Protein backbone atom coordinates (compact mmCIF):
# COMPACT_ATOMS: atom_id res chain seq x y z
CA UNK A 1 0.00 0.00 0.00
CA UNK A 2 2.98 2.28 0.54
CA UNK A 3 3.51 4.29 -2.63
CA UNK A 4 6.95 5.62 -1.81
CA UNK A 5 10.00 3.51 -2.53
CA UNK A 6 11.83 3.27 0.77
CA UNK A 7 15.59 3.19 0.20
CA UNK A 8 16.12 1.69 3.65
CA UNK A 9 14.18 -1.35 2.49
CA UNK A 10 16.67 -2.05 -0.30
CA UNK A 11 20.04 -1.05 1.15
CA UNK A 12 22.03 -1.10 4.35
CA UNK A 13 23.00 2.32 5.72
CA UNK A 14 26.54 1.77 4.44
CA UNK A 15 25.33 0.99 0.92
CA UNK A 16 23.15 4.10 0.97
CA UNK A 17 26.15 6.19 2.05
CA UNK A 18 28.34 4.79 -0.73
CA UNK A 19 25.62 5.61 -3.22
CA UNK A 20 25.49 9.21 -2.03
CA UNK A 21 29.15 10.22 -1.83
CA UNK A 22 32.69 9.00 -2.49
CA UNK A 23 34.05 10.95 0.50
CA UNK A 24 34.73 8.43 3.31
CA UNK A 25 34.26 11.02 6.10
CA UNK A 26 30.87 12.11 4.76
CA UNK A 27 29.94 8.42 4.28
CA UNK A 28 30.44 7.84 8.02
CA UNK A 29 28.11 10.70 8.86
CA UNK A 30 25.51 9.57 6.31
CA UNK A 31 25.49 6.16 7.98
CA UNK A 32 24.98 7.86 11.35
CA UNK A 33 22.18 10.08 10.00
CA UNK A 34 20.41 7.12 8.37
CA UNK A 35 20.72 4.96 11.49
CA UNK A 36 19.56 7.80 13.75
CA UNK A 37 16.62 8.49 11.42
CA UNK A 38 17.78 12.07 10.79
CA UNK A 39 16.30 13.51 7.60
CA UNK A 40 18.92 15.19 5.38
CA UNK A 41 19.16 16.59 1.88
CA UNK A 42 19.12 13.13 0.26
CA UNK A 43 15.89 12.00 1.93
CA UNK A 44 14.24 15.23 0.82
CA UNK A 45 15.52 14.76 -2.74
CA UNK A 46 14.09 11.23 -2.82
CA UNK A 47 10.69 12.48 -1.64
CA UNK A 48 10.68 15.06 -4.46
CA UNK A 49 11.13 12.36 -7.16
CA UNK A 50 10.05 12.58 -9.87
CA UNK A 51 10.42 16.37 -9.92
CA UNK A 52 7.81 18.43 -11.77
CA UNK A 53 8.22 18.11 -15.53
CA UNK A 54 6.72 21.55 -16.18
CA UNK A 55 9.20 23.09 -13.76
CA UNK A 56 12.12 21.20 -15.26
CA UNK A 57 11.19 22.30 -18.76
CA UNK A 58 10.57 25.88 -17.60
CA UNK A 59 7.19 26.05 -19.36
CA UNK A 60 5.17 27.19 -16.32
CA UNK A 61 4.64 30.95 -15.95
CA UNK A 62 3.62 32.52 -12.64
CA UNK A 63 4.40 36.10 -13.61
CA UNK A 64 0.90 37.58 -13.45
CA UNK A 65 -2.50 37.14 -11.83
CA UNK A 66 -4.16 35.84 -15.01
CA UNK A 67 -2.06 32.70 -14.51
CA UNK A 68 -0.43 30.48 -13.50
CA UNK A 69 -0.18 29.22 -17.08
CA UNK A 70 1.68 26.40 -18.70
CA UNK A 71 2.25 25.02 -22.12
CA UNK A 72 1.14 21.49 -22.93
CA UNK A 73 4.33 19.72 -24.01
CA UNK A 74 2.27 16.97 -25.69
CA UNK A 75 0.86 19.44 -28.21
CA UNK A 76 -2.81 18.75 -27.38
CA UNK A 77 -3.57 21.50 -24.88
CA UNK A 78 -2.61 25.17 -24.54
CA UNK A 79 0.30 26.36 -26.68
CA UNK A 80 0.17 29.89 -25.21
CA UNK A 81 -0.38 31.49 -21.80
CA UNK A 82 -3.50 33.60 -21.17
CA UNK A 83 -1.56 36.70 -22.28
CA UNK A 84 -0.42 34.92 -25.44
CA UNK A 85 3.15 34.16 -24.33
CA UNK A 86 4.57 31.18 -26.21
CA UNK A 87 6.81 28.49 -24.73
CA UNK A 88 9.88 30.37 -26.05
CA UNK A 89 8.83 33.56 -24.25
CA UNK A 90 8.00 31.72 -21.04
CA UNK A 91 11.25 29.72 -20.98
CA UNK A 92 13.33 32.84 -21.75
CA UNK A 93 11.56 34.88 -19.05
CA UNK A 94 12.03 32.13 -16.46
CA UNK A 95 15.71 31.73 -17.33
CA UNK A 96 16.25 35.50 -17.22
CA UNK A 97 14.59 35.66 -13.79
CA UNK A 98 16.93 32.97 -12.48
CA UNK A 99 19.96 34.81 -13.89
CA UNK A 100 18.74 38.06 -12.30
CA UNK A 101 18.50 36.29 -8.93
CA UNK A 102 22.03 34.95 -9.28
CA UNK A 103 23.48 38.26 -10.46
CA UNK A 104 21.69 40.09 -7.63
CA UNK A 105 23.09 37.81 -4.94
CA UNK A 106 26.68 37.87 -6.28
CA UNK A 107 26.66 41.61 -6.78
CA UNK A 108 24.97 42.45 -3.48
CA UNK A 109 27.74 40.42 -1.84
CA UNK A 110 30.16 42.68 -3.74
CA UNK A 111 28.36 45.81 -2.57
CA UNK A 112 28.71 44.78 1.08
CA UNK A 113 32.44 44.16 0.73
CA UNK A 114 32.93 47.59 -0.87
CA UNK A 115 30.78 49.19 1.84
CA UNK A 116 32.93 47.61 4.55
CA UNK A 117 36.03 48.89 2.72
CA UNK A 118 34.53 52.38 2.60
CA UNK A 119 33.68 52.39 6.31
CA UNK A 120 37.15 51.01 7.06
CA UNK A 121 38.75 53.82 5.05
CA UNK A 122 36.78 56.29 7.16
CA UNK A 123 37.99 54.57 10.34
CA UNK A 124 34.47 53.55 11.31
CA UNK A 125 35.06 49.80 11.58
CA UNK A 126 36.80 47.57 14.10
CA UNK A 127 39.08 44.72 13.12
CA UNK A 128 39.20 45.47 9.38
CA UNK A 129 42.25 47.04 7.73
CA UNK A 130 43.63 47.80 4.27
CA UNK A 131 45.97 44.84 3.85
CA UNK A 132 47.08 44.71 0.20
CA UNK A 133 48.09 48.32 -0.54
CA UNK A 134 49.86 47.37 -3.77
CA UNK A 135 46.65 45.90 -5.18
CA UNK A 136 44.64 48.87 -3.90
CA UNK A 137 46.87 51.22 -5.89
CA UNK A 138 46.71 49.06 -9.00
CA UNK A 139 42.90 48.98 -9.06
CA UNK A 140 42.67 52.66 -8.12
CA UNK A 141 44.86 53.51 -11.12
CA UNK A 142 42.35 51.80 -13.41
CA UNK A 143 39.69 54.12 -11.99
CA UNK A 144 41.94 57.16 -12.53
CA UNK A 145 42.24 57.76 -8.80
CA UNK A 146 45.33 59.59 -7.49
CA UNK A 147 47.43 56.97 -5.66
CA UNK A 148 49.98 59.38 -4.25
CA UNK A 149 48.07 59.65 -0.98
CA UNK A 150 47.38 57.69 2.21
CA UNK A 151 45.93 54.18 1.68
CA UNK A 152 42.76 55.26 3.52
CA UNK A 153 42.17 58.14 1.12
CA UNK A 154 42.74 55.93 -1.92
CA UNK A 155 40.45 53.20 -0.52
CA UNK A 156 37.74 55.75 0.26
CA UNK A 157 37.73 57.15 -3.28
CA UNK A 158 37.95 53.72 -4.91
CA UNK A 159 35.09 52.38 -2.78
CA UNK A 160 32.97 55.41 -3.64
CA UNK A 161 33.75 55.01 -7.35
CA UNK A 162 32.70 51.35 -7.24
CA UNK A 163 29.57 51.96 -5.17
CA UNK A 164 28.59 54.63 -7.66
CA UNK A 165 28.70 52.06 -10.46
CA UNK A 166 25.91 50.02 -8.89
CA UNK A 167 23.43 52.69 -9.95
CA UNK A 168 25.51 54.88 -12.22
CA UNK A 169 24.10 57.21 -14.85
CA UNK A 170 27.40 57.34 -16.74
CA UNK A 171 26.28 54.07 -18.41
CA UNK A 172 29.53 52.12 -18.06
CA UNK A 173 31.43 49.99 -15.56
CA UNK A 174 35.18 50.60 -15.31
CA UNK A 175 36.28 46.96 -14.74
CA UNK A 176 34.60 45.91 -18.02
CA UNK A 177 37.50 47.71 -19.74
CA UNK A 178 39.72 44.80 -18.64
CA UNK A 179 38.08 42.53 -21.25
CA UNK A 180 39.99 41.94 -24.50
CA UNK A 181 39.07 44.37 -27.29
CA UNK A 182 37.56 41.75 -29.71
CA UNK A 183 35.26 40.58 -26.91
CA UNK A 184 34.20 44.16 -26.10
CA UNK A 185 33.57 44.75 -29.79
CA UNK A 186 31.25 41.71 -29.82
CA UNK A 187 29.36 43.02 -26.78
CA UNK A 188 29.03 46.47 -28.36
CA UNK A 189 27.67 44.95 -31.58
CA UNK A 190 25.06 42.98 -29.62
CA UNK A 191 24.29 46.10 -27.56
CA UNK A 192 24.92 44.22 -24.32
CA UNK A 193 27.68 46.34 -22.78
CA UNK A 194 26.59 46.53 -19.12
CA UNK A 195 25.58 50.03 -18.04
CA UNK A 196 25.49 49.58 -14.26
CA UNK A 197 25.26 46.69 -11.82
CA UNK A 198 21.80 47.21 -10.37
CA UNK A 199 20.21 48.58 -13.52
CA UNK A 200 20.66 45.43 -15.61
CA UNK A 201 19.10 43.28 -12.89
CA UNK A 202 16.18 45.69 -12.50
CA UNK A 203 15.72 45.76 -16.27
CA UNK A 204 15.38 41.96 -16.34
CA UNK A 205 12.65 42.16 -13.69
CA UNK A 206 10.98 44.85 -15.79
CA UNK A 207 11.19 42.91 -19.03
CA UNK A 208 9.76 39.66 -17.62
CA UNK A 209 6.73 41.52 -16.30
CA UNK A 210 3.43 40.80 -18.05
CA UNK A 211 3.21 42.50 -21.39
CA UNK A 212 6.74 43.86 -21.66
CA UNK A 213 9.34 41.88 -23.63
CA UNK A 214 8.00 38.91 -25.62
CA UNK A 215 10.93 38.34 -27.99
CA UNK A 216 12.91 35.50 -26.45
CA UNK A 217 16.14 36.50 -28.20
CA UNK A 218 15.86 40.02 -26.84
CA UNK A 219 15.08 38.72 -23.34
CA UNK A 220 18.13 36.43 -23.43
CA UNK A 221 20.36 39.28 -24.64
CA UNK A 222 19.33 41.30 -21.57
CA UNK A 223 20.04 38.22 -19.43
CA UNK A 224 23.56 38.19 -20.93
CA UNK A 225 23.98 41.90 -20.22
CA UNK A 226 22.98 41.39 -16.57
CA UNK A 227 25.39 38.46 -16.33
CA UNK A 228 28.19 40.67 -17.64
CA UNK A 229 27.27 43.43 -15.17
CA UNK A 230 27.68 40.85 -12.43
CA UNK A 231 30.80 39.04 -13.66
CA UNK A 232 32.68 42.16 -14.75
CA UNK A 233 30.98 44.40 -12.17
CA UNK A 234 29.63 43.38 -8.76
CA UNK A 235 31.43 40.04 -8.50
CA UNK A 236 34.74 41.44 -9.70
CA UNK A 237 34.48 44.33 -7.22
CA UNK A 238 33.90 41.71 -4.49
CA UNK A 239 37.10 39.89 -5.45
CA UNK A 240 39.19 43.04 -5.71
CA UNK A 241 38.17 44.55 -2.39
CA UNK A 242 38.25 41.17 -0.59
CA UNK A 243 41.90 40.94 -1.63
CA UNK A 244 42.56 44.54 -0.62
CA UNK A 245 40.96 44.02 2.81
CA UNK A 246 42.01 40.47 3.66
CA UNK A 247 45.06 39.87 1.45
CA UNK A 248 45.53 38.46 -2.04
CA UNK A 249 45.44 34.64 -2.07
CA UNK A 250 48.45 32.49 -2.84
CA UNK A 251 48.76 28.67 -3.10
CA UNK A 252 48.45 27.06 0.33
CA UNK A 253 48.42 23.55 1.75
CA UNK A 254 45.56 22.65 4.01
CA UNK A 255 43.12 19.90 4.93
CA UNK A 256 39.77 18.94 3.47
CA UNK A 257 36.60 17.03 4.51
CA UNK A 258 34.70 16.51 7.76
CA UNK A 259 37.86 15.06 9.32
CA UNK A 260 39.03 18.64 9.96
CA UNK A 261 36.60 18.79 12.90
CA UNK A 262 38.56 18.24 16.09
CA UNK A 263 37.88 15.86 18.99
CA UNK A 264 39.27 18.15 21.65
CA UNK A 265 38.94 21.72 20.36
CA UNK A 266 36.04 24.14 20.08
CA UNK A 267 34.80 23.56 16.51
CA UNK A 268 33.37 26.56 14.70
CA UNK A 269 32.04 25.98 11.16
CA UNK A 270 32.08 29.11 9.00
CA UNK A 271 29.52 28.67 6.24
CA UNK A 272 28.18 30.88 3.47
CA UNK A 273 29.76 33.07 0.81
CA UNK A 274 31.03 36.38 2.12
CA UNK A 275 34.36 36.66 4.01
CA UNK A 276 33.32 39.87 5.81
CA UNK A 277 31.99 38.05 8.87
CA UNK A 278 34.06 34.85 8.77
CA UNK A 279 37.41 36.68 8.51
CA UNK A 280 36.63 38.37 11.82
CA UNK A 281 35.64 35.06 13.46
CA UNK A 282 38.95 33.53 12.36
CA UNK A 283 40.75 36.56 13.77
CA UNK A 284 38.88 36.17 17.06
CA UNK A 285 39.61 32.44 17.17
CA UNK A 286 43.33 33.32 17.22
CA UNK A 287 42.91 35.88 20.00
CA UNK A 288 45.12 34.74 22.93
CA UNK A 289 42.49 35.68 25.51
CA UNK A 290 39.77 33.62 23.80
CA UNK A 291 42.13 30.68 23.27
CA UNK A 292 43.03 30.85 26.97
CA UNK A 293 39.34 30.88 27.86
CA UNK A 294 38.74 27.79 25.70
CA UNK A 295 41.64 26.02 27.44
CA UNK A 296 40.35 27.06 30.84
CA UNK A 297 37.04 25.36 29.96
CA UNK A 298 38.82 22.12 29.08
CA UNK A 299 39.29 22.40 25.31
CA UNK A 300 42.71 22.32 23.65
CA UNK A 301 41.98 25.38 21.55
CA UNK A 302 39.63 26.90 19.00
CA UNK A 303 39.28 25.21 15.63
CA UNK A 304 37.62 27.35 12.93
CA UNK A 305 36.82 25.37 9.77
CA UNK A 306 35.32 26.59 6.52
CA UNK A 307 32.38 25.34 4.51
CA UNK A 308 31.06 26.12 1.04
CA UNK A 309 32.32 29.38 -0.54
CA UNK A 310 33.08 31.19 2.71
CA UNK A 311 35.26 28.15 3.34
CA UNK A 312 37.06 28.77 0.04
CA UNK A 313 37.65 32.45 0.91
CA UNK A 314 39.21 31.41 4.23
CA UNK A 315 41.18 28.55 2.70
CA UNK A 316 42.88 30.68 0.05
CA UNK A 317 43.65 33.61 2.33
CA UNK A 318 44.10 32.12 5.82
CA UNK A 319 44.80 28.45 5.12
CA UNK A 320 41.76 27.53 7.24
CA UNK A 321 40.87 23.84 6.60
CA UNK A 322 37.61 23.26 4.75
CA UNK A 323 35.00 20.83 6.07
CA UNK A 324 33.11 20.45 2.82
CA UNK A 325 30.71 21.90 0.30
CA UNK A 326 27.08 22.89 0.56
CA UNK A 327 25.95 19.25 0.78
CA UNK A 328 28.17 18.70 3.83
CA UNK A 329 26.49 21.32 6.03
CA UNK A 330 24.00 18.92 7.56
CA UNK A 331 26.68 16.23 7.82
CA UNK A 332 28.88 18.55 9.90
CA UNK A 333 26.02 19.11 12.34
CA UNK A 334 25.25 15.38 12.43
CA UNK A 335 28.74 14.78 13.91
CA UNK A 336 27.51 16.39 17.11
CA UNK A 337 31.00 17.88 17.42
CA UNK A 338 30.18 21.37 16.16
CA UNK A 339 29.92 24.03 18.86
CA UNK A 340 28.70 26.72 16.47
CA UNK A 341 27.93 27.11 12.80
CA UNK A 342 28.36 30.77 11.90
CA UNK A 343 26.64 31.61 8.64
CA UNK A 344 26.42 34.66 6.40
CA UNK A 345 24.31 34.01 3.32
CA UNK A 346 23.65 31.89 0.22
CA UNK A 347 23.52 28.07 0.32
CA UNK A 348 22.47 28.09 4.00
CA UNK A 349 19.88 25.30 3.99
CA UNK A 350 16.81 26.13 6.05
CA UNK A 351 17.10 22.49 7.11
CA UNK A 352 20.38 23.17 8.94
CA UNK A 353 18.55 25.26 11.51
CA UNK A 354 16.18 22.40 12.23
CA UNK A 355 18.71 19.62 12.79
CA UNK A 356 18.69 18.52 16.44
CA UNK A 357 22.36 19.25 17.11
CA UNK A 358 21.91 22.75 15.68
CA UNK A 359 19.47 23.64 18.43
CA UNK A 360 21.09 22.01 21.45
CA UNK A 361 23.29 24.54 23.23
CA UNK A 362 26.60 22.90 23.98
Amino acid sequence: MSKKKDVNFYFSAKEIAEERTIDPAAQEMIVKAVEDGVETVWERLAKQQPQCGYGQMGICCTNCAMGPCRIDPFGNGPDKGVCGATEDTIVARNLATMLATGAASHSDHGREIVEVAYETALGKTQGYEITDVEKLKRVATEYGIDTDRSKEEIARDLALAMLEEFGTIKNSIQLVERAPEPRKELWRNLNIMPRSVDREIVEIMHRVHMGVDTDYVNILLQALRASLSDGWGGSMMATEFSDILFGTPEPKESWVNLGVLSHDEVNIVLHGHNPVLSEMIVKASRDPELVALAKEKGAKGINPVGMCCTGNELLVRQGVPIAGNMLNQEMALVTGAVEAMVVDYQCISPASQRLPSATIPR
Partner: protein
Amino acid sequence: MKTVFVNPERCIGCRHCEVACAIEHSQTKEVLTVFFEDPLPQPRIHVEPGIDFTTFPNKCRHCNPAPCMQACPTGALYRDGTTGSVLLDGYKCIACSMCAIVCPFDVITFHKTWNIKVEHEINFKCDHCVERQARGEVPACVEACKTDALIFGEINELTKQGRQDFTLRLTSNAGRVDETPSLPASVKMSRDMNAKLSKFSPLE
Protein backbone atom coordinates in the same frame (compact mmCIF):
# COMPACT_ATOMS: atom_id res chain seq x y z
CA MET B 1 -6.98 -6.83 -6.63
CA LYS B 2 -4.45 -4.05 -6.97
CA THR B 3 -5.53 -0.80 -8.58
CA VAL B 4 -4.73 2.89 -8.95
CA PHE B 5 -7.23 4.43 -6.54
CA VAL B 6 -8.29 8.02 -7.21
CA ASN B 7 -9.01 10.52 -4.47
CA PRO B 8 -10.52 13.27 -6.68
CA GLU B 9 -10.71 15.87 -3.94
CA ARG B 10 -6.95 15.67 -3.46
CA CYS B 11 -6.24 16.30 -7.15
CA ILE B 12 -4.93 19.86 -7.61
CA GLY B 13 -4.76 19.58 -11.40
CA CYS B 14 -0.97 19.83 -11.65
CA ARG B 15 -0.90 17.21 -14.45
CA HIS B 16 2.35 15.83 -13.04
CA CYS B 17 0.90 12.30 -13.57
CA GLU B 18 0.50 13.02 -17.30
CA VAL B 19 4.13 14.06 -17.66
CA ALA B 20 5.38 11.10 -15.63
CA CYS B 21 3.26 8.70 -17.71
CA ALA B 22 4.54 10.06 -21.02
CA ILE B 23 8.16 9.88 -19.82
CA GLU B 24 7.77 6.35 -18.43
CA HIS B 25 6.55 5.04 -21.80
CA SER B 26 9.02 7.04 -23.89
CA GLN B 27 12.17 5.90 -25.63
CA THR B 28 14.69 8.04 -23.72
CA LYS B 29 12.84 8.24 -20.37
CA GLU B 30 14.44 11.63 -19.64
CA VAL B 31 12.36 14.76 -19.14
CA LEU B 32 14.76 16.95 -21.09
CA THR B 33 14.92 14.66 -24.13
CA VAL B 34 11.47 13.06 -24.44
CA PHE B 35 9.94 16.04 -26.15
CA PHE B 36 12.47 15.82 -28.96
CA GLU B 37 11.39 12.25 -29.71
CA ASP B 38 9.45 11.29 -32.81
CA PRO B 39 6.68 10.27 -32.32
CA LEU B 40 6.11 12.70 -29.47
CA PRO B 41 5.34 10.75 -26.27
CA GLN B 42 1.78 11.13 -25.00
CA PRO B 43 0.19 10.51 -21.61
CA ARG B 44 -2.18 7.58 -21.02
CA ILE B 45 -3.78 9.36 -18.07
CA HIS B 46 -5.89 12.48 -18.58
CA VAL B 47 -6.58 15.20 -16.03
CA GLU B 48 -9.89 16.82 -16.95
CA PRO B 49 -11.48 19.81 -15.18
CA GLY B 50 -14.84 19.34 -13.45
CA ILE B 51 -17.02 21.85 -11.61
CA ASP B 52 -15.83 23.97 -8.67
CA PHE B 53 -12.19 23.74 -9.72
CA THR B 54 -12.12 20.01 -9.07
CA THR B 55 -10.25 17.78 -11.47
CA PHE B 56 -10.25 14.07 -12.14
CA PRO B 57 -7.26 12.07 -13.37
CA ASN B 58 -8.99 9.65 -15.72
CA LYS B 59 -7.33 6.48 -16.97
CA CYS B 60 -8.02 2.86 -17.91
CA ARG B 61 -9.65 1.13 -14.92
CA HIS B 62 -8.66 -2.32 -16.22
CA CYS B 63 -12.30 -3.53 -16.05
CA ASN B 64 -13.09 -7.21 -15.64
CA PRO B 65 -14.82 -8.24 -17.81
CA ALA B 66 -13.48 -5.46 -19.99
CA PRO B 67 -15.86 -4.10 -22.67
CA CYS B 68 -12.87 -3.19 -24.87
CA MET B 69 -11.63 -6.79 -24.85
CA GLN B 70 -15.12 -8.04 -25.67
CA ALA B 71 -15.42 -5.64 -28.61
CA CYS B 72 -11.94 -6.14 -30.05
CA PRO B 73 -12.33 -8.20 -33.26
CA THR B 74 -8.66 -9.23 -33.54
CA GLY B 75 -7.91 -10.16 -29.94
CA ALA B 76 -5.33 -7.40 -29.68
CA LEU B 77 -6.43 -6.68 -26.12
CA TYR B 78 -5.72 -9.36 -23.55
CA ARG B 79 -5.59 -9.80 -19.80
CA ASP B 80 -2.23 -10.09 -18.04
CA GLY B 81 -2.28 -13.18 -15.88
CA THR B 82 0.01 -11.77 -13.18
CA THR B 83 -1.50 -8.36 -12.52
CA GLY B 84 -4.97 -8.71 -14.05
CA SER B 85 -4.27 -5.67 -16.22
CA VAL B 86 -5.78 -5.20 -19.71
CA LEU B 87 -2.84 -5.05 -22.11
CA LEU B 88 -2.38 -4.56 -25.84
CA ASP B 89 -0.61 -6.52 -28.55
CA GLY B 90 0.10 -3.54 -30.80
CA TYR B 91 0.78 -5.61 -33.92
CA LYS B 92 -2.73 -7.11 -33.80
CA CYS B 93 -4.48 -3.73 -33.47
CA ILE B 94 -6.33 -2.70 -36.67
CA ALA B 95 -7.25 0.76 -35.33
CA CYS B 96 -10.98 0.14 -35.76
CA SER B 97 -11.64 2.12 -32.55
CA MET B 98 -14.31 -0.32 -31.34
CA CYS B 99 -12.52 -0.40 -27.97
CA ALA B 100 -12.78 3.38 -27.68
CA ILE B 101 -16.46 3.29 -28.61
CA VAL B 102 -17.38 0.85 -25.85
CA CYS B 103 -14.99 2.13 -23.17
CA PRO B 104 -17.18 3.35 -20.26
CA PHE B 105 -14.56 5.98 -19.34
CA ASP B 106 -13.54 7.20 -22.81
CA VAL B 107 -9.87 6.84 -21.95
CA ILE B 108 -8.72 5.05 -25.10
CA THR B 109 -6.86 7.24 -27.57
CA PHE B 110 -4.93 6.41 -30.74
CA HIS B 111 -1.31 7.38 -31.32
CA LYS B 112 1.87 6.14 -32.90
CA THR B 113 4.36 4.62 -30.45
CA TRP B 114 8.10 4.25 -30.76
CA ASN B 115 8.19 0.55 -29.87
CA ILE B 116 5.43 -0.81 -32.16
CA LYS B 117 6.85 -0.45 -35.67
CA VAL B 118 3.66 0.10 -37.68
CA GLU B 119 2.77 3.03 -39.91
CA HIS B 120 -0.66 3.81 -38.45
CA GLU B 121 -1.88 5.03 -35.08
CA ILE B 122 -2.91 2.28 -32.70
CA ASN B 123 -4.75 1.82 -29.42
CA PHE B 124 -2.86 3.83 -26.82
CA LYS B 125 -4.04 2.84 -23.38
CA CYS B 126 -2.69 2.59 -19.84
CA ASP B 127 -0.64 -0.58 -19.35
CA HIS B 128 -0.81 -0.30 -15.55
CA CYS B 129 3.01 0.06 -15.67
CA VAL B 130 3.33 -3.73 -15.52
CA GLU B 131 7.10 -3.47 -16.05
CA ARG B 132 7.42 -1.20 -13.03
CA GLN B 133 5.14 -3.47 -11.02
CA ALA B 134 7.40 -6.42 -11.88
CA ARG B 135 10.29 -4.47 -10.33
CA GLY B 136 8.27 -3.84 -7.18
CA GLU B 137 7.55 -0.22 -8.09
CA VAL B 138 4.22 1.58 -8.20
CA PRO B 139 2.88 2.95 -11.52
CA ALA B 140 4.62 6.14 -12.70
CA CYS B 141 1.51 8.32 -12.29
CA VAL B 142 1.16 7.24 -8.66
CA GLU B 143 4.82 7.91 -7.92
CA ALA B 144 4.47 11.37 -9.47
CA CYS B 145 1.36 12.32 -7.47
CA LYS B 146 2.53 14.42 -4.51
CA THR B 147 -0.92 14.92 -2.97
CA ASP B 148 -1.92 11.22 -2.81
CA ALA B 149 -4.80 11.85 -5.22
CA LEU B 150 -3.48 8.67 -6.88
CA ILE B 151 -2.65 5.73 -4.64
CA PHE B 152 -1.74 2.21 -5.71
CA GLY B 153 -2.72 -0.76 -3.61
CA GLU B 154 -5.17 -3.51 -2.75
CA ILE B 155 -8.61 -2.03 -3.36
CA ASN B 156 -10.03 -3.51 -0.15
CA GLU B 157 -7.19 -2.02 1.89
CA LEU B 158 -7.71 1.39 0.32
CA THR B 159 -11.48 1.49 0.85
CA LYS B 160 -10.97 0.24 4.40
CA GLN B 161 -9.03 3.42 5.15
CA GLY B 162 -11.90 5.54 3.87
CA ARG B 163 -14.41 3.45 5.80
CA GLN B 164 -12.46 3.94 9.00
CA ASP B 165 -12.38 7.70 8.42
CA PHE B 166 -16.14 7.66 7.91
CA THR B 167 -16.67 5.64 11.10
CA LEU B 168 -14.59 8.15 13.05
CA ARG B 169 -16.67 11.02 11.74
CA LEU B 170 -19.91 9.17 12.37
CA THR B 171 -19.09 8.26 15.96
CA SER B 172 -17.76 11.70 16.76
CA ASN B 173 -21.20 12.97 15.75
CA ALA B 174 -23.20 10.60 17.98
CA GLY B 175 -25.96 12.32 19.95
CA ARG B 176 -25.88 15.46 17.81
CA VAL B 177 -28.65 16.76 15.62
CA ASP B 178 -26.64 17.14 12.37
CA GLU B 179 -28.14 15.20 9.50
CA THR B 180 -24.78 14.00 8.17
CA PRO B 181 -21.48 13.27 9.84
CA SER B 182 -19.53 16.53 9.99
CA LEU B 183 -16.57 17.02 7.70
CA PRO B 184 -13.09 17.88 8.91
CA ALA B 185 -12.82 21.70 9.04
CA SER B 186 -10.07 21.76 6.40
CA VAL B 187 -12.14 19.78 3.89
CA LYS B 188 -15.17 21.96 4.48
CA MET B 189 -13.13 25.15 4.04
CA SER B 190 -11.55 23.81 0.88
CA ARG B 191 -14.95 22.92 -0.61
CA ASP B 192 -16.47 26.27 0.34
CA MET B 193 -13.52 28.16 -1.12
CA ASN B 194 -13.65 26.24 -4.39
CA ALA B 195 -17.40 26.80 -4.66
CA LYS B 196 -16.91 30.56 -4.21
CA LEU B 197 -13.94 30.76 -6.56
CA SER B 198 -15.74 28.76 -9.22
CA LYS B 199 -18.16 31.67 -9.67
CA PHE B 200 -15.29 33.23 -11.59
CA SER B 201 -14.41 30.08 -13.47
CA PRO B 202 -14.85 30.00 -17.24
CA LEU B 203 -16.62 26.66 -16.80
CA GLU B 204 -19.36 28.18 -14.64
